């Protein structure tokens, strides 16, 4: 009989090892699944783990996918550390995209007085859009005690429908053959690329700056410390005089802002216009990224790259091997499941033998 025995101290080594263990479990299940589907597992694994990092072009594509994941996951990590369950990042991402799109639409064909400065204005608008959506959650939580999980999630649906309303209605491109999409934004709004012929853009650099900033906030600033105490031990935080409302607002505004920034970068980076297909689930995948990255800014970079490999691998497996793209979602969910199970090992030792208390 297996039983769990609490460790006196959580194991640091296993905390870092657990994501790798979870990845191993996910890959094992994947190999089994590919074999069941009658596909060559080795070739499938190659699609997921070799092809996405094979060339400069592939790496550039990887960075395009990883950028929004890193940004959103950073904010979520902060929220989860503060014990604020913001799971509506997808909605905050969409609102960021809408706000960014609104500013981008104002850029006429003739050079506006802002010039390239409009890119900054668009990014700021994205941040504000995401913050606004998260602020609703914070307000209803603080003022009316409404569960943040459900409110933030309901707002995802509202945001997606708002986007649909805009691109099917008032913002529809009049010359777009009635397709639900805005005009392609003016070239002046385009996010600068890192190299010609590659889609990688300065968004990745912004994301890395945010990683550093989040690290400083989490581990070097008083405010970040107070926020985490509130998450770990609410009573201790109250005794120390740390405001619970302050932690709620700070974590939600930062995470909403980062998700909105990701939406803006996506809008004027790879997309260049708004369509109903702006939300592709980055906000939900980022939840997994945050946990797999151990809610640590540096860990998040690694896990976001891994998750991007899942995305690109899924696309390649579809186009080259005829495997359904939906596999990506299966693996993402499995990875989080496996991680949570493996995380048990951080706090407990597995013992063999009868358990006197088990019932």
């Amino acid at each position, binding site marked *: 009989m297996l039983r769990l025995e609490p460790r006196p101290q959580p194991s640091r080594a296993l905390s870092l090892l657990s994501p790798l263990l979870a990845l191993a479990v996910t890959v094992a299940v994947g190999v089994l699944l590919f074999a069941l589907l009658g596909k060559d597992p080795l070739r499938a694994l190659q699609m997921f783990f070799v092809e996405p990092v094979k060339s400069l072009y592939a790496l550039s594509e990887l960075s395009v996918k990883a950028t929004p994941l890193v940004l959103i996951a950073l904010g979520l990590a902060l929220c989860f550390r503060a014990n604020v369950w913001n799971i509506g990042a997808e909605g905050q991402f969409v609102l960021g995209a809408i706000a960014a799109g609104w500013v981008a639409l104002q850029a006429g064909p003739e050079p506006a007085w802002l010039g390239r400065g409009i890119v900054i204005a668009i990014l700021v608008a994205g941040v504000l859009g995401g913050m606004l959506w998260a602020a609703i959650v914070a307000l209803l939580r603080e003022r009316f*005690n409404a569960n943040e999980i459900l409110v933030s999630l309901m707002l995802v649906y509202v945001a997606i429908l708002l986007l649909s309303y805009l691109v099917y209605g008032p913002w529809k491109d009049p010359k777009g053959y009635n397709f639900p999409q805005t005009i392609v934004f003016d070239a002046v709004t385009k996010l600068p690329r890192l190299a010609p012929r590659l889609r990688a853009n300065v968004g990745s650099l912004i994301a890395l700056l945010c990683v550093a900033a989040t690290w400083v906030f989490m581990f070097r600033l008083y405010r970040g410390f107070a926020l985490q105490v509130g998450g770990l031990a609410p009573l201790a935080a109250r005794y120390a005089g740390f405001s619970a409302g302050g932690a709620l607002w700070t974590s939600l505004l930062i995470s909403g802002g980062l998700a909105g920034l990701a939406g803006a970068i996506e809008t004027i980076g790879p997309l260049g216009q708004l369509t109903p297909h702006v939300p592709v689930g980055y906000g939900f995948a980022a939840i997994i990224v945050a946990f797999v990255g151990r809610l640590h800014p540096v860990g998040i970079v690694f896990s976001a790259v891994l998750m991007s490999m899942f995305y690109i691998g899924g696309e390649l497996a579809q186009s080259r091997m005829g495997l359904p793209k939906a596999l990506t979602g299966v693996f993402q969910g499995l990875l989080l499941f496996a991680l949570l199970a493996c995380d048990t090992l951080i706090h407990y030792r597995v013992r063999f033998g009868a358990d006197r208390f088990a019932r």
Partner: protein
Amino acid sequence: MEPLALLVAATLNAGTVLAIAGLGLLINERAGIVNLGAEGIMLVAAIAGFATAVHSGSDLLAFAAGAAAGALLAAAFGWLVIWLNTNQYATGLALALFGVGFSAFVGLSYTQATLGQRARFVLPWLSDLPFVGVALFRQHPMVYAAMALAALIAWFLYRTRSGLVLRAVGESPESAHALGFPVRRIRLAAVCAGGALCGLAGAYLSVVYSPLWMEGMVAGKGWIALALTTFSTWRPARVLLGAYLFGGVTMLQFHLQGQGVDVSSHLLSMLPYLATIVVLVLISRNAAFIKANMPASIGKPFHPGA
């Protein structure tokens, strides 16, 4: 009168999905477990039920398949949160995300599939009554079953010894454990029962209510069902009431579109989600009231002997 009667009938039908899932989640939460994976469970059960209906042609088998799929997923969730003490919220989210991906993957070959002629249900004599006949007595049996289920669960929770034990486990697992009750097994049983009901709701959605399979077709109903448990302050009859309220809001949106109201369908589709937020705000406003009604151990892990 006729359109109104049809609106009432449609409301009851739409509310049934939410009611069954909400009652399942109520059982979970009465035992102290929050299952945020309801949306994922309903999706997987929806495709399990739909596929079964396509291949077997039997709705009953389809419901059984949906319930079984739900119970199975819930058991995996339960094992993680009850025995491995993983965080309930994170594990539930994992289930929700997994369910979205897995159902999309399994359902690929069923997106074009259709079910045969759907049976029509008409209660003899009663259905000929003016107004109420159309409004109440031409429903799928599951609509009445959901009402009976609410009564049954209320009776179980408040009138049977097992129900008392279940509530004790949810209020104070430590005390229940000290009295010698197998807390973890009771919680697992509650989680599986709740998962089976969520699964039944998912199968009803894809086999009877829609009836078709579409990726992500549950469209937040699992989350709304979770909100229902708070709305009901954990009482079965109020879950039913809340479910019909939300069913009504959903139907109102179609009704308004049918009446040619000049508002974008995208904006009208926001109604159920906005209504959920409004209702949550109204109910939760009084924190002390919620706290007094909420099962005390909700969301907290229990480790015997620790």
